[in-house]
């Protein structure tokens, strides 16, 4: 009897300690979730903090006297003259007028505030409006990258300011006068890559991604759905079927870079396809996403209740008719959802594309499936490797665009599932 009581006593005494342990264990769980979620928050704030300035550009707005004599140009419609004409001088003269204390002697220093591309901008404007020649116009041109960096990050010690003291004072005064302004960076969305950060954009990469994704979708969706139908509905129970299933499961877990090696050895070296084109990229990503699509499509087919099949068979449909007329339409929402998620995965994929040469520096926006191109994540990789912080800023901005695409694709998948999902 005494023994019994002491047992209860022991339990009671230990309860406090055990409850403490319980609370501690719970706290560990909350801590783990907090760590994971704070990593997510830190990641997002870091990228947004680094990149939001990438969405603005710095421009110079001023009155430019388009004097024909100064530009060695007397007819703006003449192609040959336009090629030879001097488009820097009018901009430079206009800017010197704006900068207090600047004279002809320090024209070099003033010229360094203008973007090297500004003269091209002026040429294009004049080509569009030949009658501007000889008049004075208020024009807006891009500022030099160094001015851009200074205007955005003057106080930031991480950025090295390349402007001289005097130039910095000038820019300060110009900002005060409203000559140097920051505005929405349309260049970022309308041009391809460039060596000059202020002129670098993501359009080329976005189009490249789009072309690659089209190839991937057109190939992987029908093939994946067909394979899923075969495995779920027609495959006999034999060794070959088992072997196919083992292969699919393993391929789903093979590192993506291995698919890059496959693409390099088979598509490029064996078939002699060109490097760094969207078609090869799309083929490689197709092989990579196929297992995902097959697995999710099979799950979708499995979820169609047998009563549907039995009803169709009961009124005399053949096996193929049952599948194509009844099972497939009912499984389609699930298949689409899985495919969109697979596409999102492929859109963010980088490693295999590096191996098939989609890392080249490409200025032009690709015009077709067989033209050299790069994709958005590879563009991020290229810019992130640059020592110039102005490119890092753009890499962050490109990441935001990429994440926006991925989030909207996933939202689409979830929305589709919610709208079309049927509970049996």
């Amino acid at each position, binding site marked *: 009897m005494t023994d019994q009581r002491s047992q209860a006593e022991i339990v009671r005494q230990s309860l406090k300690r055990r409850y403490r342990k319980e609370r501690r264990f719970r706290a560990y769980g909350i801590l783990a979730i907090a760590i994971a979620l704070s990593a997510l928050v830190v*990641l997002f704030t870091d990228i947004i903090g680094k990149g939001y300035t990438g969405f603005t550009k710095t421009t110079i707005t001023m009155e430019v006297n388009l004097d024909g004599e100064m530009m060695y140009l007397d007819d703006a419609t003449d192609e040959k003259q336009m090629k030879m004409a001097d488009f820097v001088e009018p901009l430079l003269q206009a800017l010197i007028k704006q900068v207090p204390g600047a004279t002809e002697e320090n024209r070099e220093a003033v010229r360094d505030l203008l973007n090297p591309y500004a003269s091209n901008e002026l040429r294009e404007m004049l080509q569009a409006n030949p009658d501007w020649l000889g008049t004075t116009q208020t024009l807006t041109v891009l500022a030099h990258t160094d001015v851009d960096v200074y205007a955005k990050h003057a106080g930031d010690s991480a950025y090295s300011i390349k402007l001289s003291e005097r130039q910095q004072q000038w820019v300060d005064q110009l900002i005060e006068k409203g000559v140097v302004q920051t505005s929405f960076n349309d260049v970022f969305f309308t041009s391809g890559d460039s060596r000059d950060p202020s002129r670098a954009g993501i359009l080329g990469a976005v189009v490249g991604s789009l072309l690659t994704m089209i190839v991937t979708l057109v190939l992987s969706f029908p093939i994946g759905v067909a394979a899923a139908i075969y495995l779920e509905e027609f495959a006999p129970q034999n060794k070959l079927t088992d072997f196919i299933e083992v292969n699919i499961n393993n391929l789903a877990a093979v590192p993506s870079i*291995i698919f890059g090696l496959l693409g390099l050895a088979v598509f490029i070296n064996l078939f002699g396809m060109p490097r760094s084109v969207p078609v090869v990229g799309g083929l490689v990503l197709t092989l990579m996403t196929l297992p995902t699509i097959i697995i999710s499509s099979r799950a979708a087919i499995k979820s169609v209740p047998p009563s549907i099949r039995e009803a169709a068979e009961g009124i005399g449909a053949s096996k193929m008719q049952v599948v194509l007329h009844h099972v497939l339409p009912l499984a389609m929402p699930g298949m689409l959802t899985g495919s969109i998620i697979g596409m999102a995965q492929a859109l963010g994929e980088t490693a295999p594309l590096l191996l098939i040469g989609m890392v080249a520096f490409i200025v032009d926006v690709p015009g077709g499936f067989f033209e050299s191109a790069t994709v958005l994540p590879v563009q991020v990789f290229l810019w992130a490797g640059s020592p110039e912080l102005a490119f890092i800023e753009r890499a962050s901005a490109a990441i935001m665009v990429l994440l926006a695409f991925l989030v909207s694709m996933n939202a689409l998948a979830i929305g589709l599932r919610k709208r079309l999902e049927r509970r049996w």
Partner: protein
Amino acid sequence: MQPANLLLLTIVLSMVAYGLGYARSRSLAMPMGGIRYLKSLPFYYGARAALWCGIPALIVLGLWAAFQGKVIQTLVISSLPQEMLPASEGRASLLLSKISNVANGSLPPGFAEAPILEAAERLKALREQSRLFMSVLVVSVSVLAGFLGWIRVRPAANARTQVEAILKWLFFACAALAILTTVGIIFSVALETFRFFQLIPFTEFFFGSQWSPQTALRADQVAAQGAFGMIPLFTGTLLISAIAMLVAVPVGLLSAIYLSEYANKKVRSVVKPLLEMLAGIPTVVYGFFAALTVAPFISDFAASMGIDASSQSALAAGGVMGIMIIPFVSSLSDDVINAVPQTMRDGSLALGATQSETMKKVIFPAALPGIMGGVLLAVSRAIGETMIVVMAAGLAANLTANPLETVTTVTVQIVTLLTGDQEFDSAKTLAAFALGAMLFLATLLLNVVALKIVRKYREQYD
């Protein structure tokens, strides 16, 4: 015609064949008293004609387009004069690119020797011929087969079973593509690996502790013969994966336990998708974060403590990789924990154990094999992960266990060896494939073992 246009043409021809087959079956049926006297519906006669018209033509087109480039290259090279014949494959590809540049007009003819110009002309002619032959062949195959399909439209023919059989074979071919992909992977890495081991002895690769793949490009160049010992790469990969696992396993496991045992439905429905968001972020973004934020932070922090840390430390790459793998571990363990029968939980609670005791002493041991399987899958993810390490880990192959130093990994080396200029015969390029083969084998092994464990475990409680 371009292959793409030819593809469109074949599709159009198939549609025409469908229409003709459909119409013919109807017109044959009319005098008999309606389509119910046909063996199959008119749709199937049309579909059969379309499939006959399209499939053989597409197969021919695909094969031709895949192999014409290589065949033309070989023909052009072999027609060069004796003294110009390239000595190695690397030279051949150089010569070929020169020839095709001349042929495309991107290299002015003045810059090339006479035999090159001739070869360029031949290349152009061969390309033209090939395109012509291909167009004629594809169109005639398609028209001929389509005609056959049309002729065979007879009321007694059972077109439906034939169409269904063809479709079934097509579906099978799509499923068999998985085997073909695996074969392609094995073929592409095994062949080059075999050639690599002809150049570099087996023992050096597996037991050498030096990795410096820079070999001399020309025979007369004074340069060190590269060293190809994979031990530093192997240990580097293991170090980074171990760091990743140290982050991912406790955090992932504990959050899975909390979410499945303690959290109410509301918390679960918010936290779970947020955790899964971590898995949806592209790896290049993690690489960016690791290289530009975490790595400088770690080296600054270490410097302020008076420790020397590299700016490309293994800790940064491994830590960020761990964050990436958290959702992977947590969702797998979540499944496994949920698969433990409720009766075990109830039994333990009824005996007076607290929830944490139930978890630690009953559920966790029961779920352990499944969790181990999940962890193994996560390890295979970690060693195959590429972008984070390419961006945040270094290139120097140090043999060290210090997480603050720079190490390199197998995947980093594959990427560095294969991007940039390459020569297809050099040991350097082949080494990348040998490393790829090792990576493939290692991940395959881990996956097979892990899947086996998980499956066995599932059967236990089903």
